[in-house]
């Protein structure tokens, strides 16, 4: 089982890496929301190209990025096959009575392009900052402390539990078990899962004890050092500008 190492390349250097994490989160989130609600395929395509441009600027290894981005494509690819058949519209092809509609094709493409733009931006946002700093930036952005802490601790324990789970899995395989989708296999899997839940539950007590031993009272406890420079202001203004412009342009275009 692999660790979720999204920030493996966070220590590289690029203008995106240097972008203040708070400004990065705000402007990328706005961009994502903006591109996702575009209705015009040409504008969506421009948005995707823009995202890809930022990916190039960020110098993240393309293999790393594409491996993650293509997941979305695989997930949505069936739409491209189904929607031309189910959506009514201008017919481009008629295969033995089944009509393939142009509108369906366009609509499916639009969805996929929007999703690709969004996932590319999200990937860049996360991959160019160490995950702990992203979480601290959320705190600095006044996201409620309870949620930020839950994100932080969950993130940390994903690694611990992944190790634990792999060890349990190994020891089951050693005894000749292979997970198959039959009743026996699934109920054994339920046992492992139950064991994981019990072990994690016991761990919650020990972790809480060690937190209390350090004076924990439920408030977030990190030092955050982040400084906005002029460059950060300029860059985020540009991105917010683009996010807004896309929709203004679309309005004018469709009118």
């Amino acid at each position: 089982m692999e660790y979720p190492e999204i920030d493996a390349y966070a220590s590289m250097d690029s203008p995106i890496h240097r972008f203040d994490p708070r400004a990065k989160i705000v402007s990328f989130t706005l961009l994502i929301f903006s591109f996702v609600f575009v209705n015009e395929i040409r504008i969506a395509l421009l948005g995707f190209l823009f995202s890809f441009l930022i990916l190039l600027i960020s110098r993240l290894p393309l293999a790393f990025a594409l491996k993650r981005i293509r997941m979305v494509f695989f997930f949505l690819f069936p739409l491209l096959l189904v929607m031309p058949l189910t959506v009514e519209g201008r017919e481009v092809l008629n295969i033995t009575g089944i009509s393939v509609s142009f509108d369906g094709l366009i609509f499916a493409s639009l969805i996929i392009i929007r999703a690709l733009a969004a996932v590319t931006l999200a990937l860049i946002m996360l991959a160019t900052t160490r995950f702990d700093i992203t979480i601290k930036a959320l705190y600095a952005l006044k996201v409620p402390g309870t949620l930020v802490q839950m994100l932080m601790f969950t993130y940390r324990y994903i690694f611990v539990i992944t190790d634990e789970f792999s060890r349990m899995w190994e020891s089951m395989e050693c005894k000749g078990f292979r997970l198959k989708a039959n009743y026996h296999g699934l109920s054994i899997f339920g046992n492992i899962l139950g064991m994981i839940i019990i072990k994690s539950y016991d761990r919650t007590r020990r972790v809480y004890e060690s937190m209390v031993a350090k004076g924990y009272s439920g408030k977030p406890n990190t030092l955050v050092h982040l400084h906005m420079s002029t460059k950060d202001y300029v860059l985020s203004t540009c991105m917010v500008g683009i996010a807004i412009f896309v929709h203004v342009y679309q309005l004018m275009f469709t009118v």
Partner: protein
Amino acid sequence: MHISDGVLSFPVIIAGWAIALLLNAVILWRCKCRHDMAEEIPKISIMTGAFFVASLVHVSIGPTSVHLLLTGLLGVVLGIMAFPAMLVGLTLQAFLFQHGGITTIGINNVMMGVPALLAYWLFRYGYSKGFNPSALGTFCGALGMILSGIFLALMLITTGEQFTEIAYAVVVAHVPVMIIEGIITGSVVTFVMKVRPELLPLEREV
């Protein structure tokens, strides 16, 4: 099945966020009044971590493989805290693995969190009426899954009529997963009842 970015329409997404944030706020506020948050925060976090890891397992059915959602189980184990746990889990899943989407975290939270809450209430109610916990677990696990599927279908239909056929297909596709999750949830409940019954929120309220 998470919803990706770019599929749903603006009003649906915004409604999703609104409901999700409101429910989370209410649940956390209620929790703050009844429990010590200092104790609840590490508890929810680590349990969320456990579910996160478990949901990365792929079960192969025939030529394809599905990864688990464990909606019903989350509800049965965590009670109403399953809802905020789901928010945290989905956020990390979207960010770390690109499962689902960023803009759809809210709607996904509702789509899976509400069935989790229903599964929890049903489980508690059934248990207090003396039903067999294992059978109840199986039922709640299956119910959580199929409700998520139905919610997803409803949301697709609300977004646009282009999705009508796909929405039906989605519900049908959820049936095998529903059976899988039912069996798994049932055996987890059996296991926990035997080994560590105090872990399930049956007598106490969460």
